[in-house]
């Protein structure tokens, strides 16, 4: 006999919940404005007028100088062309399979080489630092790229809050493992949960952010809700989504794609047009959003962020440490 469990979310439940949260938000706004004039995240969410859409606007973030000259990739492309194997291996899967995913309530555990283990909820994370909009190029290892306006905070702010000890040489990001909400995990295409990592100095670099939103709205499920890592000078797979655990370690974390194909994917995974992949050309890329007759563009070293991050790899053999 096949026993099917009814989904926890029925479509008619979604709207009342939003109204409920909206009310809660209003109460918090009232409270927050008494305490401080600076905008807190909870007070900055306005629900989209369209009740059918789940989009929540974020306002009050500051614009930054990053990527102001770039042409944004259309929102529909960024939300329907995703590599997110937890929701299926086809790029059109995540936008469909992530509909029942619940990004709240959500907490991240901080552990490993820290003064003491901690937990932080999404709401608190939003308050750690003022939110910024960063328009970044994102280069996928498969030879395509996008330009996405992220909203988030520097990862360094979270790390400072986490208080790692001097033993912390690397940061490991562990994503959610839940094959009920993430149906793609029922197939062992990767060793679940998804694990990624950065060297401490990479994690502390001002370019590295934790994104909570994009296009001025809360992150859609298929793009990594409730928050994801964005490391713009590395290939896209370094950007862990739906993170539940951050662990500080002394040794280099064993990351998912390195385990899946050590000769294809490296721990560093810096965008590098001179280091080829056995399958895809890395010297050029296709910018998503162009038409049928738009040629490929040249891929830049460190995805064009060499000025900001080149010094991190001084003296390192980037062909060996790809």
């Amino acid at each position, binding site marked *: 006999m096949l026993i099917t469990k009814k989904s926890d979310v029925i479509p008619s439940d979604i709207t009342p919940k939003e109204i409920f949260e909206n009310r809660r938000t209003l109460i918090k706004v009232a409270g927050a404005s008494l305490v401080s004039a600076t905008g807190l995240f909870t007070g900055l969410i306005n629900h989209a007028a369209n009740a059918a859409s789940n989009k929540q606007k974020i306002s009050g973030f500051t614009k930054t100088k990053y990527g102001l000259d770039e042409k944004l990739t259309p929102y529909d492309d960024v939300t329907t*062309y995703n590599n997110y194997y937890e929701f299926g291996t086809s790029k059109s899967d995540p936008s469909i399979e992530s509909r029942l995913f619940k990004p709240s309530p959500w907490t991240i555990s901080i552990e490993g080489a820290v003064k003491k283990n901690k937990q932080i909820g999404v709401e608190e994370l939003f308050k750690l630092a003022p939110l910024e909009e960063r328009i970044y190029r994102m280069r996928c290892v498969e030879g395509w790229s996008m330009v996405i306006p992220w909203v988030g905070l520097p990862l360094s702010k979270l790390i400072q809050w986490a208080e790692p000890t001097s033993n912390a040489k690397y940061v490991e990001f562990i994503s959610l493992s839940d094959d009920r909400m993430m149906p793609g995990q029922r197939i062992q295409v990767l060793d679940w949960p998804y694990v990624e990592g950065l060297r401490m100095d990479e994690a502390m670099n001002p370019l590295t952010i934790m994104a909570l939103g994009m296009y001025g709205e809360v992150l859609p499920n298929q793009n990594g809700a409730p928050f994801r890592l964005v490391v713009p000078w590395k290939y896209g797979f370094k950007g862990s989504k739906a993170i539940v655990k951050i662990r500080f370690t002394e040794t280099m974390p064993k990351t998912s794609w390195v385990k899946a194909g050590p000769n294809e994917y490296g721990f560093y995974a810096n965008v590098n047009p001179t280091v080829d992949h056995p399958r895809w050309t890395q010297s050029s890329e296709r910018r998503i959003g162009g*038409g049928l007759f738009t040629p*490929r563009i040249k891929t830049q070293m460190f995805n064009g962020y060499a000025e900001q991050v080149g010094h991190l790899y001084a003296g390192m053999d980037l062909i060996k440490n790809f």
Partner: protein
Amino acid sequence: MLANNNKLLILNIKSIIFILSLIPLCRLFYLGWYDALGANPIEFIERSTGTWALVFLMLSLSMTPFRQWSGINSFIQYRRMLGLFMFFYACLHILTYVWLDHWFDLNEIANDITMHPYILVGFTAFLLTIPLAITSSKAMMKRLGGRWKLLHQFVYLIGILAVFHFLLLVKKDHTEPLVYGAIFFSLIALRIAYRFRRYFKPVVL
């Protein structure tokens, strides 16, 4: 009279196959016209034409076992058209790659072929289809005689290379290319089984 009827039937079926075989191409034009080819339209066209080339390869290879096991000889009449449609979609596949994807940048294409095994394998498969397409006419069949059959045995190598090309290109989930691989080997197995059929006990269907 009966022979004429049969000829008419085959002609009608051929016309239907011809029209049906153009549907994947019409679909691409339709989706392209309505801007519905997705975020990466060039990749979409590459995948679609490649997949259909593979499907037509399998269809053309299934005519012989269909004829052998059903006893209906006319199946063989459709093989050439299906094979030529395989060549047609393979040409579109290559054209998309060379034109839309790489804008005739021969340097980059040469690098791609030498550096990436799946491109090399796919390109080899395509090159092998050219002599088969050229010699597909009745006149060429007559001219080549016994050598025609030998030459067209290359289709099995093309099949292996095409499936291998697909398998190498996939990043992690190998299900789809393995399905094509299984179909390909079943079609080969049916041929072998037919050759040794007298060793089997008769099966009542």
